[in-house]
């Protein structure tokens, strides 16, 4: 049980089930605890139950999109420390510009990966984020 507690908990949010399965398959090679959500609303519900050590987040999603999730995460003191990796088909400049236009603030995320993610690269980035923030 004590062993279980030490494993990093990663929440992956994407509306595309194939992307979720691919990412989960890659991350399963490491001793992480993984959970998935298909939209921003579900993501926020799951975060109220357990705060993840890392959030991997798509931007274009139904119900609540990724920008909305980032906004909520960064305005709620309990969640501001959670590192966010954006994983999306939207290009980085356009993503950041849209967030700035909507909120008037810079998008506070810790990593940005454009889909499709290279598996080895993804594992490295995840490990780095967990090391810094946990």
């Amino acid at each position, binding site marked *: 049980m004590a062993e279980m507690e030490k494993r990093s908990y990663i929440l992956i949010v994407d509306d*595309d089930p*194939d*992307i979720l*399965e*691919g*990412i989960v*398959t*890659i991350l*399963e*090679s490491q001793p992480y605890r993984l959970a998935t959500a298909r939209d921003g609303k579900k993501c926020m519900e799951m975060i109220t139950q357990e705060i993840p050590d890392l959030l991997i987040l798509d931007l*274009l999603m139904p119900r609540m999109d990724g920008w909305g999730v980032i906004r909520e995460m960064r305005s709620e003191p309990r969640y501001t420390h959670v590192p966010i990796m954006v994983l999306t*088909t939207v*290009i*980085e*400049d356009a993503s950041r510009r849209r967030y700035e236009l909507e909120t008037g603030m810079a998008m506070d995320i810790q990593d940005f990966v454009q*889909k*499709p*993610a*290279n*598996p*080895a690269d993804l594992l490295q980035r995840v490990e780095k984020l967990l090391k810094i923030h946990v």
Partner: protein
Amino acid sequence: MFEVSARSLTVTAERLRRSEIFSELCDEDLIAIAEFCREQTFHEGEFVLVEGAPAETMFIVERGKLALEKKIQIGRHSTPRNATIGYVEPGKIAGFSTLTMPDEYSTSAVCLEPTRVIAVDGKALRAFLETHPAAGLKVMRILAMLVGGRYRNATNTLTYFLSIVSHELRGPLAAIENYLQTMLGGFAGELNPKQKRMIERSILRVVDLRTLIGDVVDLARMRPEQIQADFEWCNPGEIGTESVEDARLAAAEKGIRLIIEPPPKFEPIVGARRRLRQVFTNLLNNAIKFSPPDSRVFFRAWYEQEAVVLEVEDEGPGIPEEDLPHIFKDFFRASNVEQTQGAGLGLSIAMKIIEAHNGRILVRNLTGEAGKTGTRFTVYIPRDLLTPEMRRREWIATESDQLKG
């Protein structure tokens, strides 16, 4: 006899009045124009006018509906397709090229249903408008509005269409590529050598497709001010490394050695990082694509007084002399590359990106030089570019200087 003719003239004039283009003309003008008009009917599917043909007649739709079509051909050898760019309904006109240079139809018009039109003789109409300047001005004013409207509409439709298509295609492609990469990485179990090779090939094909889609979308967005808005401090060494990373798999596939010759030290420059990476990835991928197996591709960089210079050189067949002036044009593909895939957009996009940096991109055919073959692309990026923030500060500084002065 005269009675009938006069009455039919009045009927035609009345119909002309209901058309957009002649709506502001007086009875006298309308009756004069009616003299060189005739009514015509067309079947469904029949062409009323054909793109590129001499524009001798203008058509006013009375009943029915026309589709305006434009021939679209991507690359030299693909089948041309017709894209519908608009519709012409009763009261509207088709073939207004009749009134403007270069007097040839800019689109085709095909009947979507049985259609009745008034065909106006172009030469006679022009002569009439020239001798009746007041009427001419009214018609030309409406014409300018119509042309402007159609142009705006076409650009909007195109941009909208491209952005939708890009998003719709990127999602599924990313999912496929992600699965393939996951399998290739061994995360879903061991692969035998044949499976591994097939997956590698699939990834290359998907990447080609993704690049192609990206190129078509980029072309619509590639305006200098958009590129300049992304200017930031960046390290050309890192950009080069990323580009090499993008091209590594394609090189390995053909057994091509990438030989990298960097300067002793990289100094940062101002530029659009992601766009520059796109330029060098494209040049490297081109070099690899057109090189024979087991040859070498060189990627060099050095600094000059005013520019950082990056160069990609291959040992391929070179570009035919007659093609050299055209290689930076949209959709151009050289005449000796029929067997190789691509839309012919990579270099025209690279050119637009480098021009937005006030830089230069030069191409040189090495074939024929002292037993050599190949092509060399040399890119110069100025070292004195400004980020948007620097430009803002500079502007404020000159403003306050002027105030003080």
